[in-house]
């Protein structure tokens, strides 16, 4: 109860205070808003970028797309670069939260794969509102200790053998789209909501808890509390490469949700030149290869960056294979009505679990 009031108060003051401090903000700073531990805040990357360009990177983080939009709305002019899932680009543009990007200033933009750069989700009225960065899957990941042989079907989540050892993300859209795949439907055009609901209802008793950040997921595996759960491909890679956890990604035969993450420049950015330099650095093959090798990452949208990986790298061999491409479904934008419907369903499921 105290929290909402406090949040409101803090937000109100933050708006007022930021209005004063912004004018004093040094122009050399590049304020970046992204998920925590998602490339842009890697210390070596920040150091390389700062050394090459002279700009200073200030990172800030969000835990959900809605929180990211909230931060953009309540702190106009604070951020210079924001990482937005392409499915939310529409909403950010319609809310006048982001501005068109002059891609001629980005030397690496020409190498971004044409189908991603030309995505209608990122281009509006002939202007570019988002630079494709990486793409990946919301698929399954397993605790290798619990399986002799990786499963191939999404039905594994419903196997009574894993009762109380399954985890999914506390996110209405992701849960509903996962239910759509499990019931054999198109995630962007769900015709049979009852089937989705039935699938998810029967999944609830299997679930241990909901995760909201990579850290949650990794800790559950580290303490051997889960067998299987929904996870992001880049995060699974990172859990294995960087945290040395027994995690491997499974792309079920029924399919998986694919997403495209892109960088945008918020409206009112005080340092557009710095933002352009930072985005260009983020899509650079050199940064990407280092990111994959040192930490683990999703698949770059830059074709030259993917080609620079070893031929047997997961992000090149598996994610790039035409067989996988056939199975995955890219997320399209979601209307507010759909989102509210999904949220209502998700909340109902969570309440009925008691």
């Amino acid at each position, binding site marked *: *109860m*105290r*929290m*909402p*009031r406090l*949040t*409101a*108060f803090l937000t*109100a003051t933050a708006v007022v205070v930021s209005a004063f401090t912004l004018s004093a903000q040094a122009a050399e700073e590049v304020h970046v808003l992204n998920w925590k531990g998602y490339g842009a805040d890697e210390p070596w990357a920040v150091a390389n970028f700062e050394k090459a360009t002279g700009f200073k990177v200030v990172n800030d983080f969000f835990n*959900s797309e*809605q*929180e990211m*939009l*909230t931060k953009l*709305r*309540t702190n*106009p002019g604070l951020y210079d670069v924001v990482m937005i899932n392409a499915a939310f680009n529409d909403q950010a543009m319609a*809310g*006048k*939260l982001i501005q068109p990007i002059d891609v001629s200033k980005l030397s690496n933009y020409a190498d971004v794969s044409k189908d991603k750069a030309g995505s209608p989700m990122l281009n509006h009225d002939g202007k570019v509102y988002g630079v494709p960065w990486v793409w990946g899957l919301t698929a399954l990941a397993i605790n290798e200790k619990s399986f002799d042989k990786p499963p191939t079907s999404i039905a594994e989540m419903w196997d009574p053998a894993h009762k109380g050892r399954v985890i999914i993300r506390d996110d209405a859209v992701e849960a509903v789209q996962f239910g759509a795949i499990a019931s054999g439907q198109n995630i962007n055009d769900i015709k049979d909501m009852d089937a989705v609901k039935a699938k998810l209802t029967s999944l*609830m008793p299997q*679930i*241990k*808890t*909901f995760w909201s950040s990579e850290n949650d997921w990794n800790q559950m595996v580290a*303490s*051997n*509390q889960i067998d299987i759960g929904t996870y992001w491909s880049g995060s699974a890679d990172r859990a294995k490469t960087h945290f040395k956890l027994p995690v491997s990604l499974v792309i079920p035969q029924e399919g998986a949700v694919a997403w495209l993450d892109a960088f945008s420049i918020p409206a009112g950015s005080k340092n557009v030149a710095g933002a352009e330099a930072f985005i260009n650095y983020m899509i650079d093959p050199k940064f990407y290869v280092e990111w994959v090798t040192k930490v683990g990452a999703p698949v770059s949208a830059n074709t030259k960056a993917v080609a620079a990986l070893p031929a047997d790298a997961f992000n090149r061999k598996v994610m790039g294979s035409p067989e996988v491409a056939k199975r995955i479904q890219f997320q399209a934008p979601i209307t507010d009505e759909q*989102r509210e419907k999904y*949220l*209502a369903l998700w*909340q*109902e499921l*969570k*309440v009925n*679990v*008691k």
Partner: protein
Amino acid sequence: MGDQLATGSRRGLKPALPLLLPAYLWLTVAIFLPLSAMVFFSFMTDLPLAGKEWAFTLGNYAAFFSQSLYSTLLLASLRLGLEVTLWCVVVGYPAAYVLAKVLKGRSREAIFLLVILPFWSNGLVRIFSWAMVLREGGILDTALNAVLPFKINIDLMYSYPAVIIGLVHSYVPYMVLTCYLTLQAIDDSLLEAGRSLGASRLQVLKRVIIPLSMPGLIAGAALIFVPVVGSFMEPRILGGRTGTFYGTVIEDQFVAVFNWPLGAALSFILLAVVLIILALAAPVLRRAG
């Protein structure tokens, strides 16, 4: 007589004003203004940010009554509040009695410090410590299995009991402190008089100690019940899939889906329900006291 009193208090008010001013100024700025803003938000269709269209509506309050989801959750939260308060009485009252009547000097100070200690640590740290203790293969599980001759499996994490344990730990100091103050004020000679007049220990407890310490019990219960009904952090972290409560849904509206108007409306409905419960309970409790 009444006139005299009135003028007396009026005269007393003027010099007191500079003393009251900082407190009232703070209340106005930190509580009254944001709260008024929230009342305003709760009647709006959307927040007036980024030039969005908005209008006045009662829809946010109607949402509470049109979907059984919210009333189910509110009942679950009220039950949680009652259970946590009850456990705080069970755990806190005897501790307060021992502190007030049995222990003296150094040992009292030491125990007192232990009771207050949770107040000095960050709430999140406390909750995550519980997570380490309660989970399967955690501290409690390992310790019990090391001592007991047979194998037991303790996995309280992500369950309703875990939420209760976490909340009781966070709030029991309120109960200890309020009860301690009233218990300490009870004159020992009253207890001795009761005993010398032939009352058993139990009768002394029932007829003398509990009635005299009732104000402390009530104050403690109110201090615990109200925040627990709206709690969201403990259920979210310790409750797992069973951790959806009224407070977490309000938090979702503010943090996850950016529906401040609905979140504000739900908050005020909770406030109203809590006030009604306290108002209904007041005469009963006053008679008991």
